[in-house]
């Protein structure tokens, strides 16, 4: 049993409307910046005990599928850091 740190990044799938990013883009443009593209993502840092790195990744993957992300609109990436 060891303690592992993981990072989960959840973002919208390509093609899914991102009103938050659009709003931020407009505000940045108001500040005078010229943007080609912006996308917002959520980062979760999770510390947990697990049998192995593999086990930790499996557990975090499961948490992400069950709650942190919604497969209808999200894609995600899980890393043990």
């Amino acid at each position, binding site marked *: 049993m060891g303690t592992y740190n993981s990072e989960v990044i959840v973002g919208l799938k390509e093609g*899914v*409307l991102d*009103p*938050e990013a*659009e*709003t931020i883009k407009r505000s940045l443009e108001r500040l005078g910046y010229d943007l080609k593209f912006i996308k917002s993502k959520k980062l979760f840092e999770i510390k947990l005990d697990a049998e192995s790195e593999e086990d930790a990744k499996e557990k975090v993957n499961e948490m992400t599928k*069950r*709650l*942190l992300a*919604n497969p*209808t*609109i999200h894609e995600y990436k899980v890393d043990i850091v």
Partner: protein
Amino acid sequence: MTIAVIKFGGSNCEKDTVRALSYLGIESKIVWYKEEIPEDTDGIIIPGGFSYGDYLRAGSMAAITPIMDSIKCFSEDGMPIIGICNGAQISCESGLTPGLFTTNKSCRFICKNVYIRVENADTIWTERYEEREVIQIPIAHGEGRFEIRDEEMKIMEKNNKILFRYCDENGRITDESNPNGSKNNIAGILGDKNTVAVMMPHPERATLPELHLMDGSKILQGFLR
């Protein structure tokens, strides 16, 4: 006839819902989400509000509470169940109904009366309306934009699972009459069984005469068997 109105931490439409039901002569009881659903329950409403402060995604946290598993079991038995506003978000997040409701296209919280069109009048929720009837009803949400995978959308349309669409006062389905950017102007849908419905507009706020808008009352009358 007793309807269970499920209350989560952050629900705030449960009393309005009970009052609207009472006006229609339907008995109801507020059930805290940690309690068992009473045995004499004939129908369930998941009311509006901001369960768990809308953290993560609206409805996502309430969706994984054990009471939702009970509600899914009741839904399979054909019990009438309707999720309204936050209740709709919770139902979709829990998988009771497909798709999900996410951030409005404008990113703004929208609170106003809108028009919706009855797309399927062959359900307990809409049998008192005419097919394609236009009704006026309030919405109040920040995350009401319906999203679903294209292939699932096709199946829903094919199986007549669209209950209401946002429209203009003449019943035309236009971008301008779509308040939140919902896919295909969807305002309400049906579950696997047509006795399960979810909708972002608030029928309980369009039921009492003192609110001067009663177009939603026939939806809640769906509980009257």
